[in-house]
């Protein structure tokens, strides 16, 4: 009996790592640019549809597509920040919000017009593979997806920790004026950061295609999910995003098992409300 709980928990944890990668993008963008990307999930659905089209027409495995898709979304994110969002940096929060909500609306519905409302997925050769460890059965697809997400997250951590460019971006996040004074091109670094955040979403989207069916309506749902994760973990905290992803993955999996799967996101929202009220800075966030 306990075995089923362990199995479900492990499965939730693996999915949670992919969620974590997606949320990492949101957290990086907010942590540096201080703009909340209300089109986050919608950008991910773009990546998901590209991954599906690439799989269906060229037979490219979504795990392989994760890297080129990260690059594509990087370019998209960079262009978005450089062209549209940079002029909004000093505007009030609600203007930035309207800008991104407008983008989100356009993305969802253009996808709806192009691909229709039906759910799409990919059928890989390893879709039904699994590894057995005693009574623990691990779904192979989920394991690959989680491992890839962890690798990409680790690369991003390393970039911000060691690369000079990563350090420069962190400097902008720390002190905007200070960064300007020492001669950093803050606008370009912001665009770069938005690109990196979008790249996370691109990779996460490619990987998630293996785990769930894709519809255009997924965009807003995943924007919300990314918010929940990032606020739970701490908006702006990179380890927090991963931790939040794992927590939400676990919560959803267990709630689906104990109650009914359709009610699972109620528990995530419940968790969000509790975190906002009792630890608004998030589990790993610093008090502003």
């Amino acid at each position, binding site marked *: 009996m306990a075995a089923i709980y362990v199995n479900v928990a492990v499965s939730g944890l693996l999915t949670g790592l992919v969620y974590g990668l997606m949320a990492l993008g949101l957290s990086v963008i907010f942590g540096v640019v201080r703009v*909340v990307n209300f089109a986050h999930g919608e950008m991910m659905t773009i990546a998901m549809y590209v991954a599906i089209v690439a799989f269906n027409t060229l037979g490219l495995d979504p795990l392989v597509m994760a890297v080129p898709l990260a690059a594509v979304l990087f370019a998209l994110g960079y262009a978005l920040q450089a062209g549209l969002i940079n002029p909004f940096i000093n*505007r009030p*929060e*609600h*203007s930035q*919000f*309207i*800008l991104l*909500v*407008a*983008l*989100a*609306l*356009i993305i*969802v*519905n*253009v*996808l*709806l*017009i192009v691909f229709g*409302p039906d759910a799409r997925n990919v059928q890989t050769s390893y879709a039904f593979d699994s590894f057995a460890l005693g009574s623990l059965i691990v779904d192979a697809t989920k394991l690959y997806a989680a491992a890839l997400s962890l690798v990409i997250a680790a690369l991003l951590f390393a970039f911000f920790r060691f690369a000079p460019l990563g350090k420069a971006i962190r400097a902008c996040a720390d002190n905007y004026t200070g960064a300007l004074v020492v001669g950093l091109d803050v606008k370009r670094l912001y665009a770069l950061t938005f690109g990196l955040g979008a790249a996370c979403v691109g990779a996460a989207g490619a990987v998630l295609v293996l785990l769930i069916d894709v519809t*255009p309506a997924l965009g*807003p749902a995943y924007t*919300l999910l990314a*918010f*929940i994760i990032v*606020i739970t973990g701490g*908006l702006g905290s990179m380890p927090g995003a991963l931790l939040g992803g794992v927590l939400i993955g676990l919560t959803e999996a267990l709630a689906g098992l104990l109650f*009914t799967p*359709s*009610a699972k*996101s*109620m528990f995530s*929202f*419940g968790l*969000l*409300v509790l975190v*906002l*009220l*009792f630890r*608004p800075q998030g589990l790993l966030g610093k008090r502003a």
Partner: protein
Amino acid sequence: MPRNPLAVLPRRGLMLLAILLAVLCALPWLAGDYVLTVLITILYFAFVGQAWNIMMGFAGQLSLGHAIYVGLGAYTAALLYVHFGIGPWIGMLAAIAIAAACGAAIGFLAFRFGVAGVYFAILTIAFAEFARIGFDHLGFLGGSGGLFLPVANYARNDIWNLRGSPMMFYYVMLVLTAAALVLCHLLLESRTGYYWRAIREDEEAARSLGIDTFRYKMLAVVISAGMTAIAGMFFAFYYNNLFPEQVFHVSRSIELILGPIIGGIGTLFGPIIGAFLMTGLSELMQNLLASFGLDVPGARQVFYGACLLGVVLLLPDGVWPWMAARLGLSRPRA
């Protein structure tokens, strides 16, 4: 402060307002059924936009979950009518009370615990989503299968039970929207209105001047929620069916804030102008597409998105302030 609350409007503005009202009163007699339903939608959005504007435009609290108040209002009034035979106007009072209590609870939690800005906005979405999924799983409220009102008998109009022709619904909504405009005007020019605007501009400064910011933010949420519940009651009796997936959905929350944003946040006429522009233009586009034999399901939303983008890029204060300046209606800044 002016004694006569309308005295702050220039004479030309009053005249234009009177003409607009006269046109709106006469329109149903001139327009066909289709235009009438579009007009009802416009008035509905003008009304909820006005309600939302109290919170965001006056007091500066961004709510992205107003669908929760529409939904609570709609479900309360509909349930009382379906199960207990209580008419919509009595039901409306219960709906206002419940939505206002819900708004008070959300406001209390958020403002007491210092949840502000983007976090507050996300908290409001979370509550609305929580309600959506909750109502989906409450069997005695109809669950995801929906709640239905007995369909209206169009033979005669029964204002007391809100059963009747679109014409009746139109005039009900017109009265409600006009009342909302007057109420918002009175609020904006009252002491509370000045406090709200102080909080919107700079909460710290407002507090240091001795304004009880918690109390006035709460007041804004409660009034806004209560007003939105009236719209919910109307929604239930006009459409006769309620599905949690529809009334509580995030896209409803987004839809109802488009009008005030496009018309001009914090202005009295912004929500009305915005509703006319949004709904009017999107219907026009829909018809244009239909005349080419096209039925594009997402086109309306793409259009909304483009409008929003255009307004936020070109007219960040909204259409109304720009229009008012053209019409010579802007009040000189005190």
